[in-house]
């Protein structure tokens, strides 16, 4: 282009490898482009600024490119007819509609035809002209063909548009395809028919021909060389793969140990809560992963050899095989053939015998061989359980029969009611079997929806446990057994389990909060909540620094110990139960629980006779004075004498049977003994805390100065002494605190920071996210600048147009004024001339 119109941005330094975009510009071209654009948009807008009317094209389908013109016309016509439908033309006498052909009234066509006829007849007489046939029989596509043009060229000869051509081609190819397919189908049919015919004939001459045929074939194929065959065989033969070395028992044990160590290390790490973030980034940690898929399907079929005393341990294998059989049978499901049942029983019996014979070695190998499939393990454990229970209870044959009567397939119950009815009336063993079968039949790997179903099962099971615990006679033994399947389910679905337990806890806490708001004080919850708290400690690691389930449980328990009133002996037992829970929760992590100490102090306080001088203060919910004092006080000498340390039955929590005073007193003494024991355990636990003595100070004073030791029975005195000893023997040890040293702030350095440059022209510093952010900011800045520039230019453009408008207006006015003045001047001149003439004359 014109070198005078080119603007060149001179570069100061020439940098290798840098792409330059803006070194040459064409200001004139771009300006004219911009102006053109503005006149098309901005100027238009500006000119129409005072107008509010809009032109709207309401013709049907005018701008719709999808509709072909013919169809468009048809639709328009239909619309028009619709519009006029019902409106009767008063001048139209015959109601019938006018008959048309392609929108032309037939009458008109007839008229035209006549003309055509008369025209064309001049050339060919007696034959129908093409136009005539076309218009009569609708042969053409042209809608409103003009008569004049049709005279020269026919519809067929009209040059086709590209689109039409393509369409035609497509149609053709389609047709060809169709034909080809038809041909093939017919060929197939024919061959089939031929085959059938041949078969029919073949049966007739079945005896003789095969031999000859075979011979023919043999002749055709030369006998393969033996050498070749061997080579082939060798080629195809499976290469011997190096199998895994057989592991000795020691190694197995070592591996198991390593696994446990790893889990333990994990637990410790979580307990300290140091690298929570780092932990979060890791893929979800499943602690006992081997049990997570407690199922046969995932089982490893290989049996592992292990050595024992130099001999190969073959029992494993045997056992596994049997297991397999059994599993298969169980899986095989519904066949209720008696014979099979028998065989199953037999095999089971055999197994039992096996187990009895060398149960020890089996157990050991079970525990140690970690590689053994998880499902197997679980099964075995279950079996061992069964064995044990059978050994203990001796209801072997009946139980077996009953169990085998249970159906093998269970669907996961949809609601809690169904679940309950499923388990209702069954024995504990049966319930366990049912649960196990539900779990197996609906393993997540079998179908898509199973996971959600089984997750629901966790909630049902928890509800069921809660229900069992709230019964008048709580079936704690059943719960004890049901914990096992719950644990397995929890290993499979940690999220679901944690959610349902959290839900339960939230409900409980919410209830308590409501009661506090209404009554001002709370009461201890039922046994079910206590059981849930206990189960929490079984399912989840309580030593973590923070745990989604355990931490809320902690807070809830602390609320229980601080907010709930102690009015009855049951409350004391519940409170002590929670104390035990607390102690168990922190037994590993050794965390400090102030509420626990407070509560124990309070419990001991209410076991004392009323006194004035104290030296310690009890805190809420216990009061130094009040009606609940002496709740645990036992004065009866005989009861004191006859007391034996007994385990507190948990059922007393729900319903304290109206027992004799003696028994009540015995329970009281047991509580006190439990309290002593807990104090002892606390002392052992908190020994390492720097202010151990301050923490235990009130309890120590109470124990030493107030407890009437001499009145207690000997056993209780022993408890007391051991607790006191635990408290006393700790030595006092204080070291002054020193803050952690601050990290020294590094001095400013003047050596340049060296950054590796991987790609030129791009900023390297910062992470990817940071870079992205910077890029965005930069882009935003650039856009903003561009927009501002555009707006400025728009304004300039507008100002220019306005100015030119004003100039135009002004010049027009000036011109008009000039014209007027001119005309006035001539008028004046004429008038003066007239005057002069008059004067002359």
């Amino acid at each position, binding site marked *: 282009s014109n070198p005078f119109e080119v603007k060149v941005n001179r570069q100061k330094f020439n940098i290798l490898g840098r792409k330059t975009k803006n070194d040459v510009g064409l200001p004139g071209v771009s300006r004219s482009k911009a102006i053109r654009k503005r006149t098309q948009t901005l100027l238009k807008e500006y000119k129409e600024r005072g107008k509010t009317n809009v032109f709207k094209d309401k013709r049907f389908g005018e701008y719709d490119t999808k509709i072909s013109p013919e169809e468009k016309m048809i639709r328009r016509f239909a619309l028009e007819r619709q519009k006029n439908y019902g409106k009767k033309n008063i001048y139209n006498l015959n109601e019938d509609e006018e008959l048309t052909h392609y929108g032309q009234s037939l009458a008109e066509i007839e008229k035209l035809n006549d003309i055509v006829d008369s025209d064309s007849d001049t050339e060919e007489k007696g034959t129908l002209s093409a136009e005539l046939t076309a218009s009569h029989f609708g042969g053409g596509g042209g809608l409103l063909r003009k008569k004049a043009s049709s005279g020269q060229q026919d519809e067929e000869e009209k040059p086709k548009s590209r689109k039409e051509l393509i369409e035609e081609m497509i149609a053709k190819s389609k047709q060809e395809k169709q034909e080809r397919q038809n041909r093939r189908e017919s060929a197939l049919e024919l061959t089939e028919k031929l085959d059938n015919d041949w078969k029919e004939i073949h049966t007739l001459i079945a005896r003789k021909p095969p031999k000859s045929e075979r011979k023919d074939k043999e002749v055709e194929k030369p006998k393969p060389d033996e050498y070749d065959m061997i080579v082939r065989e060798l080629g195809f033969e499976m290469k011997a793969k190096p199998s895994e070395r057989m592991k000795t028992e020691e190694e197995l044990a070592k591996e198991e140990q390593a696994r446990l160590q790893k889990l333990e290390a994990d637990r410790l790490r979580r307990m300290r809560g140091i690298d929570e973030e780092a932990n979060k980034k890791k893929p979800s940690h499943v602690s006992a992963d081997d049990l997570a898929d407690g199922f046969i399907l995932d089982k490893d079929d290989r049996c592992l050899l292990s050595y024992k005393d130099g001999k190969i341990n073959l029992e494993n294998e045997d056992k596994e095989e049997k297991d397999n059989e059994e599993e298969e049978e169980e899986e095989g499901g519904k066949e209720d053939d008696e014979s099979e049942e028998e065989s199953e029983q037999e095999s089971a019996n055999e197994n039992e015998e096996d187990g009895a014979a060398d149960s020890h070695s089996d157990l050991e190998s079970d525990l140690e061989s970690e590689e053994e499939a998880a499902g197997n393990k679980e099964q075995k454990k279950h079996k061992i359980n069964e064995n044990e229970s059978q050994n203990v209870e001796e209801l072997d044959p009946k139980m077996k029969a009953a169990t085998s009567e249970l159906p093998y397939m269970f669907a996961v119950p949809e609601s809690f009611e169904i679940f309950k009815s499923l388990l209702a009336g069954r024995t504990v063993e049966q319930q366990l079997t049912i649960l196990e079968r539900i779990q197996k039949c609906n393993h997540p790997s079998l179908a898509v929806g199973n996971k959600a179903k089984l997750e629901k099962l966790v909630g049902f099971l928890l509800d069921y446990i809660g229900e069992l615990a709230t019964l008048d006679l709580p079936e704690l033994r059943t719960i*004890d057994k049901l914990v096992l399947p719950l644990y397995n389910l929890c290993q499979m679905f*940690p999220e679901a389990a944690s959610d349902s337990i959290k839900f339960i806890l939230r409900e409980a806490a919410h209830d308590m*909060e409501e009661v506090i708001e209404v009554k001002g004080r709370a009461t201890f919850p039922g046994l079910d909540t206590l059981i849930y708290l206990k189960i929490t400690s*079984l399912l989840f690691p309580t030593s973590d620094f923070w745990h989604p389930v355990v931490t809320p449980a902690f807070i809830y328990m602390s*609320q229980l110990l601080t907010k709930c009133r102690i009015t009855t002996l049951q409350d004391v037992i519940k409170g002590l139960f929670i104390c035990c829970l607390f102690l168990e929760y922190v037994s590993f992590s050794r965390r400090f629980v102030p509420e626990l100490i407070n509560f124990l102090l309070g419990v001991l306080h209410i076991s004392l006779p009323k006194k004035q001088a104290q030296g310690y203060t009890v805190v809420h919910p216990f009061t130094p004075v009040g009606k609940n004092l002496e709740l645990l006080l036992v004065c009866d000498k005989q009861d004191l004498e006859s007391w034996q340390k007994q385990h507190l039955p*948990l059922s007393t929590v729900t319903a304290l049977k109206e027992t004799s005073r003696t028994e009540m007193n015995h329970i009281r003494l047991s509580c006190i003994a439990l309290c002593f024991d*807990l104090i002892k355990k606390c002392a052992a636990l908190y020994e390492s805390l720097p202010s151990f003595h301050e923490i235990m100070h009130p309890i120590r004073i109470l124990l030493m100065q107030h407890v009437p030791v001499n009145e207690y029975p000997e056993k209780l005195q022993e408890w007391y002494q051991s607790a006191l000893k635990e408290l006393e023997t700790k030595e006092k040890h204080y070291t002054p605190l020193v803050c952690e040293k601050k990290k020294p702030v590094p001095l400013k350095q003047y050596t340049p920071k060296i950054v590796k440059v991987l790609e030129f022209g791009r900023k390297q510093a910062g992470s990817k996210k940071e870079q992205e952010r910077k890029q965005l900011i930069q882009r935003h800045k650039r856009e903003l600048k561009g927009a501002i520039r555009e707006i400025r230019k728009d304004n300039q453009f507008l100002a220019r147009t306005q100015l030119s408008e004003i100039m135009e207006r002004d010049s027009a006015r000036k011109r008009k004024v000039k014209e007027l003045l001119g005309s006035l001047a001539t008028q004046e001149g004429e008038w003066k001339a007239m005057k002069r003439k008059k004067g002359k004359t």
Partner: protein
Amino acid sequence: QLPTGLYKKVLVILHDSILPYMNEPTLMMDFLTVAYGIGGAISLLALNGLFILIHQHNLEYPDFYKKLYSLLDPSIYHVKYRARFFHLADLFLSSSHLPAYLVAAFIKRLSRLALTAPPDSLLMVIPFICNLFRRHPACKVLVHRPNGPEDMSEDPYIMEEEEPSESRALESSLWEIQSLQNHYHPDVAKAAAILNQSLSEIEDDISGLLELSAYELFDKEVTKKAVDVPLEFEQVRGLFGKKNDIFAEHFTLD
């Protein structure tokens, strides 16, 4: 002279519904001083009215801080008026002209009592103590004593001493807070661990923490979203089937 319930009610509304409308608020002086002397919850409540008298009406109250000091007993972390009391205590101890021994005694006593406090109070009182340290840097010997004796057999602080100046708080260290670093509640443990490091200059705002309730704490924890749930890897053997289960020793499943 009034029944306890009425006494408390009067004291609760005294500072904002009665005192501002009196011509001579100083007339309440005797009533409030007596109430303050009674002890317990009534003293706590009287504190507010008394503060207004001292602050706006030039009341001279001898041994005010000593009295305040003696108000600190284990129940302050458990009573209903905890928020009110700590709000006022924060006001009283905000003066930077207080002697270091006094503030140290307060710090030491508060932290000693914190050994029996529930987590909601702990979450409030630990920042409170941190604030005291910030206002009175002289007290920092309580957490940082680099050249002190290696080993002491006894905490020099005397809990039973009524007089703050005699309590030898400045010779002691905050072992209580160090113990609380092992608290079971993760937030408390974290808050207590702050004192291990040198404190930042800016004071914590504790006004939001004053009204903290245990239920709120629970709610906060229970609604936290966890990415994954760690599980117990020890196979269960029954409800009381753990190793060395405490329950098995004392409870039966009957």
